């Protein structure tokens, strides 16, 4: 982006925060699911794309006369249901058969591919815009940094969802049950926690959050069936550098990644962004494999 007569640093900071918030939304759901089930749910990225395409279907394909916020809520719900469906139809039966986490991960890769193909069949493989005429447009300026209204929503959602999850974890029975399952699923079952039901809810919530991320990215930059892969990669990298399975870790890791990427390309071309992300990942894996927040 070329912005004349503007100091680039405020814009870099803004871009970092925006990217961080998007990665945080993916990482939060991903970590929630990983923390409770201990497997890498690779389908998470495709679930995010499903949320975006659900909104696309509502607003563009069928041009339903619904409010954009309602459409987004439905999109997030659809993503949640898809995540929950994967858990019920694939992961849970596999867990029952004592499948290893590696098997679950491979199954989730299959689910990823299938969902992505399904989206392409229904909506074509083209890159498409998600913005609608009655939607969010315009921008604000802070210290010379331009932030679109969509991006404001992204940042707000990232922080708000983090806060809500932190509240749930600390103060609700559900949060405590999740925490117990994270620590020792077998003992949790032994003491009477309905782990299947809790894990089902975790999948719904985590996937709905992924849906929100997909939808917001869609409004910000557009959608394509393969969009899930990049989201998944950045979300997992954020999780790993923050502390995989940790709520705050994922959040923190996302912003570290956002800043590293955006400041990393300050003096070099933007194509290096993904490479920088992987360099950060590898550095963390070598120096601090347990992530920023270790238990």
């Amino acid at each position, binding site marked *: 982006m070329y912005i004349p007569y503007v100091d680039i640093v405020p814009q870099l900071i803004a871009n970092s925060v925006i990217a961080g918030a998007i990665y945080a939304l993916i990482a939060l759901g991903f970590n929630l699911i990983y923390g409770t089930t201990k497997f890498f749910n690779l389908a998470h990225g495709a679930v995010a794309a499903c949320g975006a395409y659900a909104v696309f279907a509502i607003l563009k394909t069928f041009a339903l006369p619904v409010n954009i916020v309602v459409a987004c809520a439905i999109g997030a719900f659809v993503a949640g249901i898809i995540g929950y469906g994967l858990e019920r139809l694939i992961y849970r039966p596999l867990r029952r058969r004592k499948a290893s986490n590696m098997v679950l991960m491979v199954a989730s890769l299959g689910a990823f591919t299938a969902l992505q193909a399904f989206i392409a069949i229904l909506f074509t493989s083209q890159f498409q815009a998600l913005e609608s005429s009655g939607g969010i447009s315009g921008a604000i300026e802070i210290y010379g940094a331009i932030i679109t209204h969509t991006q404001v929503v992204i940042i707000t959602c990232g922080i708000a969802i983090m806060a809500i999850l932190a509240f749930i974890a600390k103060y609700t029975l*559900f949060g405590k049950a999740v925490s117990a399952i994270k620590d020792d699923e077998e003992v949790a*079952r*032994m*003491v*009477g926690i*309905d782990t299947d039901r809790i894990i089902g809810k975790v999948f719904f919530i985590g996937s709905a959050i992924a849906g929100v991320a997909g939808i917001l990215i869609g409004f910000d930059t557009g959608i394509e069936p393969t969009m899930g892969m990049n989201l998944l990669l950045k979300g997992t990298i954020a999780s790993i550098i923050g502390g995989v399975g940790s709520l705050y870790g994922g959040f923190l890791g996302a912003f570290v990644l956002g800043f590293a990427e955006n400041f990393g390309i300050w003096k070099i071309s933007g194509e290096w962004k993904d490479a920088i992300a992987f360099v950060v990942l590898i550095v963390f894996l070598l120096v601090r494999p347990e992530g920023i927040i270790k238990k």
Partner: protein
Amino acid sequence: MYILETKNLKKSFGGVHALNDLSISFAKGKLTGIIGPNGSGKTTLVNVLTGMQAITGGAVVVGGKSLHAIRPEELPRLGITRTFQDVRLFEQMTVGDNIMVVLTARGPYAALTERSERKREERVKEVLEKVGLWEKRHQLAYNLSYGQRKLLEITRVLAMDADIILLDEPFAGLFKEMVKVIVHIIGELKAAGKTVLLIEHNMDLIRELSDHVIVMDAGGLLAEGKPDAVLARHDVIEAYLGE
């Protein structure tokens, strides 16, 4: 009257027969001490009874019902709970929440309907005060001392209010003071009419606490009967000395 029985119970790990055609019974409301040399299958018995390990052969009879497979989530319904030889707590949760989560664990709808937060908090306070862990309620379980960890695990058993309680070496490695506390708790469980299985290597404690003693050896039953009689038997002494 027997509340829990095993019928030709078998558990193998590859070629190792950890439980070898074991048929034993546990009287309702009594404390049965289980002794036996290292590797005789005591922990495996508890693991199989609680569904942590699958049954290879035979059956477990609980309350008259014969089971060939047990899943851990069925334990609350069966009225069974246990402690672990290597303590298993919810490490990243506070002492208070370790107990709270057990009280609220009667299914999600129960949690929605029995919203009486205060009642649960009172119960947490009650059991934690009883064992002297109330002051530690805000600490993570992870940060407790070894003895306190053992104690918290027993407290969880108290909170669960199960009828059949399996204790796998609850005294191992504890100081005298802590042993006293746990002896006291076990006494209360007996007084409350609970059925207790106590695995223990300390013969003095076994003698003091047991109504009945079962001696295991190589996954089978070596001897059983009244504590004094069983502990005086030559084959029992030999099994222990021979290890």
